[in-house]
């Protein structure tokens, strides 16, 4: 799969940025995310291992196992599609490391800027329905997924990634075992033929190419669950401070954030001094309660129109009509506030060793002539 033309290979817009080609990591730009429902062409790709080849959907099975399952049970794709009710939700998935490139001192890993987020429609069955059918024990605390992607070293005994979520998140209505994305079979790079989708949590919880889910009586200990991966310091630390692994806590719901998707940064308005902006805001497990913009670096904030989400865990659309007072250089800054009263910071938030959770305000440059 290490073909040199990722745009053709994955059906991506050629304005997407390729951060890494082994493993494939590709992100969008803000203006490519303007659609209400993100099309495949603008969806970021974050892979930890090598994309599997030669998938045979006819013989694909999903196995439910683990300490907290009464007895191991397997389902074919056909079983999943025919024996359980199907649901479609629009779900926001953001990479935990989205915005990493802004941390100082720099954090290691793919240097995502702002484009590692998408909100597509996912169709599948509820993980809850499958787990109920498989019968889980009362002591279940966590789920852990396993996929068929290959470790970069080629070592078959290693999994590139095997993460999961607390059982409560796994049993939510919107947590799906999906086989369709935007009404079609899931593209290979996004997890064909079966993907776990846990909206609002770091994208790494939404396991791709899933063929096994372990129901655990302990916090899942698969690859990238332990150590520093997808964890932040339990207590705030100074920039660059050394943090012990024991003092790192697993990231759950992602923080409130927004993106201005229209216009593209760098717009020059020649005659009119009125600009219509629009974009999306999301607050993961919570709702975005209000949305504001500023054209004077936060001296004054003005309300945007904000729509309700189409369903829980979907991003919300905002818009505003901006009148600029005079000619000159401006930046439009956008700030979302969630239902808990938490807002996006204008500066980069608390430093953490792996550079996760940067939800600083997005801004675009505008010139009025």
């Amino acid at each position, binding site marked *: 799969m290490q073909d*040199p033309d990722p745009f053709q290979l994955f059906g991506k817009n050629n304005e997407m940025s*390729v*951060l*890494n*080609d*082994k*493993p494939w990591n590709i992100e969008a730009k803000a203006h490519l995310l303007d659609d209400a429902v993100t099309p495949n062409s603008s969806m970021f790709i974050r892979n930890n291992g090598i994309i599997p080849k030669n998938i045979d959907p006819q013989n694909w099975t999903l196995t439910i196992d683990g300490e907290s399952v009464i007895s191991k049970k397997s389902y074919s794709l056909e079983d999943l599609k025919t024996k359980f009710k199907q649901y479609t939700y629009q779900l926001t998935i953001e990479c935990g490391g989205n915005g990493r490139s*802004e*941390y*100082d*001192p*720099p954090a*290691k*890993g*793919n*240097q995502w800027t702002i484009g590692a987020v998408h909100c597509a429609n996912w169709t599948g069955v509820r993980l809850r329905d499958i787990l109920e059918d498989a019968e889980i024990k009362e002591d279940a605390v966590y789920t852990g997924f396993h996929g068929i992607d290959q*470790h*970069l*070293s*080629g*070592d078959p005994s*290693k999994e590139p990634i095997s993460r999961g979520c607390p059982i409560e998140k796994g049993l939510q209505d919107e947590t799906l075992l999906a086989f369709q994305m935007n009404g079609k079979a899931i593209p290979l790079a996004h997890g064909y033929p079966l993907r776990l989708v846990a909206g609002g949590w770091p994208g790494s919880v939404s396991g791709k190419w899933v063929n096994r889910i372990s129901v655990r009586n302990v916090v899942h200990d698969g690859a990238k669950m332990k*150590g520093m991966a997808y964890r932040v310091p339990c207590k705030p630390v100074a920039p660059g401070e050394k943090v012990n692994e024991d003092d790192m806590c697993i990231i759950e719901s992602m923080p409130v954030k927004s993106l201005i998707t229209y*216009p*593209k*940064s*760098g*717009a*020059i*308005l*020649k005659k*009119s001094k009125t*600009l219509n902006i629009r974009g999306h805001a999301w607050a993961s497990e919570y709702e975005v309660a209000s949305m504001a913009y500023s054209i004077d670096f936060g001296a004054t904030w003005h309300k945007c129109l904000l729509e309700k989400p189409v369903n829980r865990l979907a991003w919300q659309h905002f818009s505003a009509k901006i009148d600029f007072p005079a000619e000159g250089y401006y*930046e439009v800054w956008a700030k979302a506030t969630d239902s808990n009263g938490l807002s996006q910071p*204008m*500066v*980069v938030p608390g430093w953490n060793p792996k550079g996760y959770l940067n939800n*600083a305000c997005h*801004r*675009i*440059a505008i*010139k009025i002539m």
Partner: protein
Amino acid sequence: MIREEWLNRLFKRLTHLIIGAISLSVVSGLLMIYLILNPSLSLVGSNLQKGKDPKTTIDPDRIENGIHVRTGLVEGKGLMAVVNNCTNCHSAKLVIQNRMNREKWNSTIQWMQETQNLWDLGKNHEVIVNYLVTYYPPQSKKRREGLKEIEWYVLED
């Protein structure tokens, strides 16, 4: 009558065949000219000989404008040690986008050795870390950088 019709059909088929042959030779002729003008055949070539980048058949490790063309890494002391030890599992793109001090590059290597099957680098360990801190050191961004590389365009409404 029947014989005439048959002859007619035969004639038509022959004309089709001749037209086909002429167009085929024109197309292949054009292809030949294209091949002569562009022998490296960068687009088609990569499909024909999978896994072999035709550009690198000249010199797989050639340097252009201070950049190791095959990987994109900066030319400098220790470059080949990095190429040979650090681009087997992951792409050089992962190295290039990161900026770390000596301690962090060291701990990253140690993490790869402990968890990702990276081998003992021996004498190359220091060569590699020296290269990385020289060409990929941390850059200060403070609390927030200004907008950079703005591509201005006229917004027509």
